[in-house]
C-alpha cells in the first residue's frame, strides 16, 4: 500500500523494476494470478476439500453475482452505500481541511491542540456505534457519524503535517512581500500542503468505505452492508459471497478513482512525476 507517511519510501530508484527483462509483462502475470486463484478456488470446492455450504465454488459465486447484478435492489444498495461514503468523506474532508489550515497556521493552536488530537484520534470509531444508534436509530445519519469521525482524523493529521512542511524561506518571502493570511494560504500553504492533503483524502476514502459498510452491517439501514447481514441471517451463502466480492470491487473502484484524482490534482508535483517513472 502506498499509504506510508510521505517521508517513508522516498528512495525508490527509478527503473529498478526494469533491471532484468522478462518475456511476460507484469500485467499478463497479474491476470494469470487472478485466473489461477479462481481456478484453485473452484478446484478446492469441486474436489470436496471444503463443503460447498461453507464455501461455494467460484463459478457459483460469480454467476450469483451476475444474476443479482440484474436486480434493481442490488444497484439501489450499491448506490446507497456510495452515497453514504461520498457524503461522509465530503463532510469530514471539508471540516478537516478547514480546521487543519487554521490550527496548522498558528504555532500556539498547534501546540495547544496536540494532546487533545492525539487523544481523540486513536479512539476506534466503532466505539461510537451505540451512541449513533441511540441518537439516530438505524438511519443513514448513524452510519455517517462513524464515517465522518473515522475519516476526519486521517485527513486532519495529513493537513497538519502538510501545513507544517511549508518552506520557511518561502513563508518569510511571502510575509516580506506583505501577503495577508488569505493570500498566503491560497498561494503558499495550500499548494505546499496539497500532496499531504491528497494522501489524507486517499487514506480517508479507504477508511470511510470500511466504516460505511461496517455501519450498514451492524446498525442496518440499507446499503450493501445491510444486504450482507440479511444474506447471512437468511442462509443465502452464494449471495453472501457475491456481496462480499461486490464490496471488494467497490473498494478497488474507489482506490482507482482517488488515485486518478490525486494524479490529476498533483500532476505538477515531483512525487507524481517520480511515481510515473518508478
Amino acid at each position, binding site marked *: 500500500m502506498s499509504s506510508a507517511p510521505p517521508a517513508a519510501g522516498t528512495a525508490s530508484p527509478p527503473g529498478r523494476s526494469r533491471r532484468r527483462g522478462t518475456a511476460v509483462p507484469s500485467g499478463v502475470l497479474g491476470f494469470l494470478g487472478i485466473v489461477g486463484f479462481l481456478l484453485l478456488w473452484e478446484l478446492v470446492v469441486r474436489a470436496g476439500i471444503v463443503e460447498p455450504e461453507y464455501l461455494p465454488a467460484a463459478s457459483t459465486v460469480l454467476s450469483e453475482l451476475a444474476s443479482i447484478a440484474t436486480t434493481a435492489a442490488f444497484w439501489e444498495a450499491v448506490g446507497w452505500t456510495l452515497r453514504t461514503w461520498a457524503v461522509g468523506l465530503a463532510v469530514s474532508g471539508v471540516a478537516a481541511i478547514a480546521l487543519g489550515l487554521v490550527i496548522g497556521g498558528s504555532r500556539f493552536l498547534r501546540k495547544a491542540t496536540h494532546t487533545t488530537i492525539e487523544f481523540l484520534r*486513536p479512539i*476506534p470509531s466503532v466505539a461510537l456505534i451505540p451512541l449513533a444508534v441511540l441518537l439516530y436509530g438505524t438511519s443513514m445519519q448513524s452510519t455517517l457519524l462513524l464515517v465522518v469521525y473515522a475519516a476526519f482524523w486521517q485527513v486532519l493529521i495529513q493537513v497538519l503535517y502538510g501545513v507544517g512542511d511549508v518552506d520557511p524561506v518561502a513563508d518569510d518571502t511571502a510575509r516580506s512581500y506583505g501577503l495577508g493570511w488569505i493570500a498566503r494560504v491560497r498561494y503558499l500553504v495550500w499548494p505546499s500542503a496539497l500532496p499531504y492533503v491528497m494522501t489524507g483524502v486517499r487514506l480517508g476514502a479507504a477508511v470511510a468505505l470500511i466504516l460505511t459498510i461496517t455501519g450498514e452491517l451492524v446498525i442496518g439501514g440499507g446499503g450493501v452492508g445491510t444486504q450482507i447481514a440479511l444474506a447471512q441471517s437468511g442462509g443465502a451463502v452464494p449471495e453472501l459471497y457475491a456481496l462480499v466480492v461486490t464490496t471488494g*470491487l467497490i473498494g478497488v473502484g474507489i482506490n482507482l478513482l482517488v488515485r486518478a484524482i490525486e494524479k490529476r490534482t498533483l500532476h505538477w508535483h515531483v512525487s507524481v512525476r517520480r511515481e510515473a517513472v518508478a
Partner: protein
Amino acid sequence: MTFVKKAAYALGLPVLLIALWWFLSRDTTNFYVPKPGELATTFVDTWIGERFRTDILPSVARFAIGTALAIVLGIAAGVWIGSARRVRSLLEPLLEFFRAIPPPVLVPILILIVGVNDRMKITVIVIGAVWPVLLNTIEGVRSVDTVLLDTARTYGLKGWTRLRTVVLPSAAPQIAAGVRQSLAIGLILMVISEMFASSSGLGFTIVLFQRSFAIPEMWSGIVLLGLIGVAVSVVFQLCERKILHWYYGQKEVQHGR
C-alpha cells in the same frame, strides 16, 4: 521551554473542555448526557472488578494475539513477495482486491466457516489486519536502495544476514507505517466481531448497555474503548521510537533541527 509551559500546553485544552462539559451539564437532567463526575464513578464501578477479568482481558487478549499474528505473517509474506519480482507481479492485482474488501464483511463469512468462538474472532482480526503490513512490507522491500543491495552483494552478504542487516532495516519505516494501520483495524475488528456474535467481550457488553438504556454505563464503555485505543497508540509510538531511532535521528539531521 520550561516544564510549566509545556504542561500548560499539554493540559490546557483538555482541562478547558472538561470544565465546559461540567459547566454545561451542571443543571440539566438530560438522560443521554452524563455529568463528568457521574461518568467517572460509573466507569470505576462498571469496569474495575469482575468485568475486568470477564470482558476486558479476553477482548484485549484476542486483539493482541490477532494483530501479533497479522504482523508476523504480513512481514514474512511481504519480504518473500517483495523480493521475488515475478511473484509480485503475479499476486499484485489479487492482493489489491483482497485489501479493498472492508474487513468487517469477513465476520459473517467466518461465522459460517469457523462458527462463533474465539478462533473466529482472532481469524477475523488476522485476515483484516494483515493487509496494511503485507502491502507496506512489499513496497518497503521493493524500494530498498539498489546501491545498498549491490554493496551487500559485493561483500558477500547472503540469506538471513542480508535480510537482517540490509533489507529489513531499509524497509522498517514503511513497515512501521503499515503496523500502525493494522493496529487500528485490529481494534475495530475486535469490537465488531464481538458486537456481531458473542456473549462476552467489550463490544458485546457495550451494545448490551445501549439496548438496555444503561446510558452512563454505555458512555463509560465508549471511554474505555477510547482509552484502549490511546494506550495501543502510545505503546506503538514507544516501540517505533526505540526500533527506528536511527531513522528519526537521520530525519532530524536532514531537516536541520
